[in-house]
């Protein structure tokens, strides 16, 4: 039975009001100046911020790769556990997400500070104190910690559907572990990987609060610079919109590249 088209109207209206119109506003602001004249100046001004833009992208890529490396085995272990353990593990994974994002990041500040929990524990065995906060490592750590569940959950939901008999068949036919992962698990979990990568990469590349709290204001990312255009000393929504637009285009480009890479792996069962 085909659903009547009219059912889609609320969603269409929703998308129109909350996605299309804001996007049009961003584009409008990006290509105009304070007098309302059309200009490319804001886009050209972006060249000053290319270094910070690329740094944000590199940080986000690093966070995404680390998340993937951690999430892949974790999701596999959860998906192969028996039903009761499986739901317990998923709940355990979700529990930290019930705590407010800011609080979780704040907790990392307490842990990583020069006088923080980790350095004090290390001090007990005469180590340190180490500089753990206010550097790029801390920012990436914050991204990995906050967005890891977004990688594990889609991977898990795909992996849990992989039939155990397929894995056994591969092993019966003499596949070693590496080959099993490369030729069977990886291709079959590709849809989960691409969802997970997008779910981690996109919020990481535009975050500003993680870099402010864990980077100590010395590791600003593009998100901080965009935020500064709106709530900083000089209110400049035009430059801010231009930055957001350029960021969006680069992210779109990277996603399409990644999806092409992924589609090659698609295996017809």
């Amino acid at each position, binding site marked *: 039975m085909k659903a009547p088209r009219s059912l889609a109207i609320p969603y269409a209206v929703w998308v129109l009001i909350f996605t299309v119109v804001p996007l049009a506003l961003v584009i409008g602001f990006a290509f105009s100046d304070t007098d309302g004249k059309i200009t490319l100046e804001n886009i050209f001004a972006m060249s*000053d911020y*290319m270094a910070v833009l690329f740094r944000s992208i590199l940080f986000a890529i690093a966070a995404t790769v680390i998340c993937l490396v951690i999430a892949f085995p974790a999701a596999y272990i959860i998906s192969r556990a028996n039903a009761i353990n499986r739901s317990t593990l998923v709940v355990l994974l979700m529990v930290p997400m019930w705590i407010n994002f800011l609080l979780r990041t704040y907790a990392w500040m307490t842990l990583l500070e*020069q006088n923080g929990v980790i350095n004090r524990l290390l001090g007990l065995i005469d180590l340190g104190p180490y*500089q753990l906060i206010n550097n790029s490592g801390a920012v990436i750590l914050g991204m990995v910690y906050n967005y890891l569940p977004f990688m594990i959950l889609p991977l898990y939901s795909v992996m849990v559907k992989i039939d155990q008999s397929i894995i056994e068949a591969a092993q019966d036919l003499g596949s070693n572990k590496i080959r099993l992962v490369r030729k069977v698990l990886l291709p079959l979990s590709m849809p989960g990987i691409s969802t997970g990568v997008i779910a981690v990469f996109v919020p990481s590349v535009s975050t500003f609060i993680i870099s402010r709290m864990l980077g100590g204001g010395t590791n600003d990312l593009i998100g901080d*610079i965009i935020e500064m255009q709106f709530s900083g000393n000089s*209110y400049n929504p035009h430059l801010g919109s231009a930055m957001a637009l350029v960021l969006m285009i680069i992210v779109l480009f990277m996603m399409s*590249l990644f999806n092409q890479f992924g589609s090659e792996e698609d295996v017809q069962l």
Partner: protein
Amino acid sequence: MKRIFALISAAALALSLCGCAGSQVSDEIDRDAVLEEFGLDPELFSDYDYSRLKDEDITLNVANWGEYMSINDDESVDVNEAFEALTGITVNYKTVASNETLYSKLLSGGATYDIVIPSDYMISKMIKEGMLQKLDFDNIPNLAKIMPSFLNPQYDPDNEYSVPYLWGMVCIIYNTTMIDGEITSWASLWDEKYAGNILMFNNPRDAFGIAQAYLGYSLNTESKAELDRCAALLKEQKEIVQGYVMDEIFDKLEGGSAAIGPYYVGDAVTMCDDNPDLDYIIPAEGTNWFVDAVCIPTTAENKEAAEMYINFLCEAEIALANCDYVGYSTPNAAAYELLDDEVKSDEKRYPSDEFLAENTEVFINLSDETNAYMQELWTQLKVDNSNVWFVPLFLVCLIAATVFVNVRRALKKKRDSY
């Protein structure tokens, strides 16, 4: 279904009855009884007619900084509840993060406030842009309680738009166990001895203000050359700064994670209370003196109620409760008289008028051009990265990925063609 409907209508009826009963009680607001209930002395309150708007069902939208008014604290009078009980007006209290956020909220029309409490430089900017309305001081007789030195300030020269709320100065806070010797000057924030233990403001106006005070420039300079010199100084400092912070400074200094940093005197008092190792000084070169004042935006819907609220904030005991709670200094002479002698004689919290005139300067609004230039310098300072490899490295990765995808595709095509 019917039963549920009946239940709902019964509940609605009961509610409306309660509502009527409630409003009947509020017909007679017993001023003295209400004040005593909140632990306030009716003798110290002015004879102002606070109950005249009680039947108009007004909701007053108030925007203030976080932790900047005595509310929700068991040990201190809840200012908003007292106002509601006294006037029958409902207060809808919201907090905003910064002057700039407030400005963009008012500008974009995203929020309607009847009361805002911006800082000096933002007030002059808002006046200039016609975002504030003139106050009717017939409705605010308590203006007489404000110290004369706070009237007709630079940011509102004819005192038409604002009534001072709280004020303070920027000081240096330091941990006496981590710093040897005496701190007297802004130079300590550039002292390599403390490398990695220095905190700095994470907003351009305050950060540049410190560089300007250190170099002896006006805090309101419009000279690009002077701003460039300040930017160079801040860049020099970046090498030894642990972090650029705003309210995170509380945790970092109180926890001993950093040794020294600039912040506002009122907050310094709070920090020193929490950690006795901390102390604070006003640097010899002079500093920024800031005033936050109550204003009414042009978009306000309840001007008279807002003026009543302003008058209420100027009542001696209310102003006292607020300055006690916040820790900042009060410009209200009547409230000042009620303070402990120890606080009154504290030169860092209540310096003499001569000291203020000689050693401090208030921020006023800069021209759009200077603001934009300062923002640009600040952004450059923050994003400056000596690692020039990011861009080429990234491009190489991107090209490698593209080549990889295409080669793979070509190989696959070849394989499939067999």
